[in-house]
């Protein structure tokens, strides 16, 4: 307070100078020489006390000011300290607990995934929604139907309206496969009485690849076809463990593509392509055409859903000569150097068996396969007789269903034993008069090429490699491989278009007649097929392609010259498949000396001579001991009074050979070392695959 205070605000004076409280002076009067003037100022005692108290209060107020300044200063200092200098971090867990949950945990799927052998997902269950309505709560079914149909174009407004107008019910499904986008759109319509149900959708990311193998599920997520049905219990019992199939989806794609190409090139009505491991019997790829997208099982036409690989029974045609010849050589009654009379067609009753390109010679066994002589095959089959033939076919699975993990598998069709006489023995020998699914056929060829070990065909990649069964001698298998290789490499062979440089492909064509609706063969229609294995030194895979009812289209005419045989239609597809999947499977093409030495080991003379000390069948010596009476009948000769039962029984015993092998390395190596010798070990080292695929 620097200004002169207003008199009222002046601190009350307690004059001490003059000793008396009432000796106030006239303000402004000079101290000395002034005229003293007595003033009477009356101040009451209480007033004075009050003024004194105010003075004390004002002095003491300073403590209050300082005190508050101090405590608020401390407050500010502490605030700065805890805010920025030494801030305490909030409890992250407590904050997290307060935050709204953004990562909503999805319930685990109720159905296991299905993968290929490399773990690529083929089928997976994802959460989705089903749309349903309570018709009793729907105001205007027509309007609601229109709104929903505008959002889900797949739904027909008329159908929707009829569902929504069904007032007797209080629950109708409208769509059981809503996408998330559709769910959102319908939800935004905000229609009362329309609800969502949380469900699972089965998705098949590979679309139409392996669709027939996978099959499908019902809207209730129950397997209804394919492995989805076969493994339904496993898939639902342990949803956490994926079902691993033996399929390689890359190979599947190639097989489908090449088979489809052959089918469309030749305007076939259907086709199959199968690749199966020669060492385990596991199916690597299996495509049936036409096909469908795996998720659309419910709406796909029956013709597309039909799995021709396991459900269709087709006469195999000349491919079946592999069965006839392997049986014959394995039986010991026939040797590859034996020759048979193919000089003229065979007439049995009202039937005539001819060759596609008649040679009119006595033909040796490799030659019979090379030119696919029906007459030669018939002669050989009749020598062995229906007993041995039936035993052989039964052993290799032609008299039942293929033991594959697909509910669609159908049994083969064949004549009853009572009907299985001369003519049936002859026609079956070249693949007519018996029909089976392509999978059955290919799985019977596996032991023919792999050294004689039969494996059940399988789609399941889990568990140890399947145990094989020795069904024929390794020696017989080797001869078969050489003869199959000859079919491809021989200049006049039917399988020249199956050649793949460096892969040592061997095989057999098939051109089967088509049985029409009346049970009669249809003219100008056939099924063209090719059965191959590679590499023939020590086969890894067997490949089979069949095109049903191909036509010589304009496009292919310059290539096939009007023929729709297996050699033109199916063999190129097989060659393409092998060329493309071979490197993928770690099988590299061979060249140079390696190729030459492997080829040399596989060569077999088309016109062989019997080894020293062995006699060959041929003109004048047509029947081996134990030959069946039908051989004599076919030759127009009278059967001997006594057939050599001992020789027949010995051949039958070899035919019925069934020696299960332990599921050991022996199984895998069985087809290798003893058969080929040095070339094989060389090759084995070359082809060690980069995969861990058991037995692959």
């Amino acid at each position, binding site marked *: *307070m620097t200004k002169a205070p207003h*008199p*009222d*605000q002046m601190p009350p004076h307690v004059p001490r100078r003059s000793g008396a409280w009432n000796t106030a002076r006239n303000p402004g009067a000079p101290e000395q020489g002034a005229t003293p003037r007595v003033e*009477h*100022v*009356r*101040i*009451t*005692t*209480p*007033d004075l*006390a*009050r003024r*004194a*108290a*105010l003075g*004390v*209060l*004002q002095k*003491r*107020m300073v*403590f*209050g*000011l300082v005190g*508050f*300044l101090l*405590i*608020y200063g*401390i*407050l*500010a200092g*502490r*605030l*700065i300290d*805890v*805010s*920025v200098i030494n*801030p*305490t*971090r*909030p*409890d992250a867990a*407590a*904050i997290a*607990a*307060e935050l709204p949950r953004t990562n909503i945990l999805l319930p685990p799927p109720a159905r296991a995934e299905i993968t290929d052998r490399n773990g690529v997902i083929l089928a997976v269950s994802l959460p989705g929604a089903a749309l349903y309505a309570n018709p009793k709560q729907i105001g205007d079914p027509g309007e609601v139907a229109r709104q929903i149909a505008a959002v889900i174009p797949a739904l027909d407004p008329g159908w929707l309206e009829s569902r929504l107008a069904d007032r007797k019910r209080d629950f109708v499904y409208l769509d059981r496969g809503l996408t998330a986008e559709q769910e959102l759109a319908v939800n935004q319509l905000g229609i009362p009485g329309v609800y969502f149900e949380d469900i699972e959708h089965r998705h098949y990311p590979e679309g139409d690849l392996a669709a027939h193998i996978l099959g499908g599920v019902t809207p209730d997520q129950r397997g209804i076809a394919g492995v989805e049905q076969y493994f339904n219990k496993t898939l639902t019992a342990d949803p956490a463990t994926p079902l691993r199939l033996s399929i390689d989806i890359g190979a599947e794609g190639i097989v489908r593509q090449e088979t489809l190409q052959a089918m469309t090139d030749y305007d076939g009505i259907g086709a199959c392509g199968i690749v199966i491991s020669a060492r385990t019997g596991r199916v690597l790829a299996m495509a049936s055409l036409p096909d469908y997208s795996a998720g659309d099982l419910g709406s796909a036409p029956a013709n597309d859903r039909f799995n021709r690989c396991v459900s269709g029974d087709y006469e195999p045609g000349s491919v079946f000569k592999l069965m006839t010849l392997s049986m014959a050589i394995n039986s010991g009654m026939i040797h590859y150097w034996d020759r048979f009379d193919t000089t003229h067609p065979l007439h049995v009753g009202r039937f005539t068996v001819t060759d596609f390109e008649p040679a009119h010679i006595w033909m040796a066994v490799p030659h019979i396969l090379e030119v696919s002589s029906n007459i030669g095959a018939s002669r050989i089959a009749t020598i062995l007789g229906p007993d041995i033939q039936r035993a052989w076919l039964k052993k290799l699975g032609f008299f039942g269903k293929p033991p594959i993990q697909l509910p669609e598998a159908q049994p083969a069709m064949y004549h009853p034993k009572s009907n299985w006489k001369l003519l049936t023995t002859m026609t079956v020998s070249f693949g007519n008069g018996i029909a089976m699914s392509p999978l059955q056929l290919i799985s019977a060829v596996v032991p023919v090429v792999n050294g004689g070990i039969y494996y059940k065909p399988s789609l399941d990649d889990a568990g140890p490699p399947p145990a094989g069964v020795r069904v024929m001698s390794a020696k017989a298998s080797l001869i078969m491989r050489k003869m199959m290789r000859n079919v491809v490499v021989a200049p006049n062979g039917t399988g020249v278009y199956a050649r793949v440089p460096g892969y040592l492909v061997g095989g057999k064509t098939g051109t089967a007649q088509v049985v029409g609706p009346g049970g009669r063969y249809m003219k100008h229609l056939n099924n063209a097929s090719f059965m191959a294995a590679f590499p023939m030194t020590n086969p890894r895979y067997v490949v089979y392609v069949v095109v049903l009812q191909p036509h010589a289209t304009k496009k292919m005419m310059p290539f096939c010259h009007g023929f729709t045989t297996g050699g033109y239609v199916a063999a190129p597809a097989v060659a393409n498949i092998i060329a493309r999947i071979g490197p993928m499977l770690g099988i590299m093409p061979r060249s140079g000396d390696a190729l030459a030495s492997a080829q040399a080991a596989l060569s077999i003379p088309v016109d062989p001579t019997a080894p020293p000390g062995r006699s060959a069948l041929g003109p004048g010596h047509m029947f081996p001991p134990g030959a069946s009476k039908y051989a004599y009948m076919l030759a127009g000769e009278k059967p001997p009074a006594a057939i050599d039962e001992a020789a027949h029984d010995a051949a039958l015993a070899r035919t019925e050979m069934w020696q299960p092998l332990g599921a050991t390395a022996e199984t895998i190596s069985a087809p290798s070392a003893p058969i080929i010798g040095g070339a094989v070990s060389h090759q084995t080292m070359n082809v060690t695959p980069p995969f861990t695929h058991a037995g692959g």
Partner: protein
Amino acid sequence: MPILSRADTSVVGRWWWSIDRVMLTALILLVGIGYVLALAATPATNIALSDPRTMVMIKQIVYLAVGAFVMIATSMLDLKQVKLAALGIGIIFLILTAFTLVHGVVIDGGRRWIALPGFTIQPSEFLKPALIIATAWLLAERRRTPGFPGMMAALGLNGLVLLMLLRQPDVGSTALVASTFLVQLFLDGLNVYWVGIAVAGFGAAGFAAFEFIAHVHMRVMLFLHPTKDKAYQAITALSAFGNGGLWGRGPGEGQVKHYLPDARADFVFAVAGEEFGLIVCLGIILIFAVIVLRGLARILRETDLFVALAASGLLVSFGLQAFINMASSLSLIPTKGMTLPFISYGGSAVLAVGLHMGFLLALTRKRNHAERAAERGAGATMQDRVA
């Protein structure tokens, strides 16, 4: 702002030219901050009248408006009306406070509340300003009227109130009322010897409370030895300040506030620290400091003992209450349930503090000579100077 002529002699006109407008501005600012924090401290939710949390927020906004109105209306009273109003309110709420002991609503272990339809009030909140004014009056009257047993009456009155508060029990209010009374006595010129005894007695009472009142003991022990499990509230409040830092996380962005117990009332300062940061919190402290320090400084010029004692009592009570609240949030002192004036949640508290500061504004208004003389009542015959 209405343009009021200095010649305007209406109630509003005289009020406008005599009110301490700086203090009024500071108080209105506090009400505004209280409004913002009523939103901030309320859990994030949709505005829906069916939601009780929305209703809580809206009620608080209404209380703030009513509190501000009460404050301004009260500030228009003259000294005589202040005394009469304080007397009336004091008598009513003294009775009501006594009533809580008989028929109070127990909240958080204290029997401090009276339930009215749709509203619970804490009568001691309203009793406080009335008690301060009554005490000042008694002490001043003692000087004016020799033989008036002002000191004994003040001691008796304060003693009665303190006893009732202790019985509720409301240790915080007891300490606040006792401190305020002590400051009033000190400013009134109480002998330093007695002041020393009173401070010692205060300390002894504090120790006794620590020793004999279980939850006081616990709070102090937790303050001295904080552990993460036990001193959860204090540490969580500190982490709110730490989370806010310099500029805060932004309005409504508080995280700690969601799990900080009592965030809307006793720890509203921590919520302010988290969402608006150090700068705004320093601003809040500054506003309180301006109100208290400016008010006290103005009392230095006051010539009326009653006004000086009453105003300083009201300011000290207000300033201490704010300090205790903020210091609790900052773990400077043991956690003590005391509201931050105008800012903490609570209808009763906002109305009471409106009344409290309304009295203060009324007391600190500029008065001319005639008024002053008139206010001295019989002192009209008493003149400073007689010619």
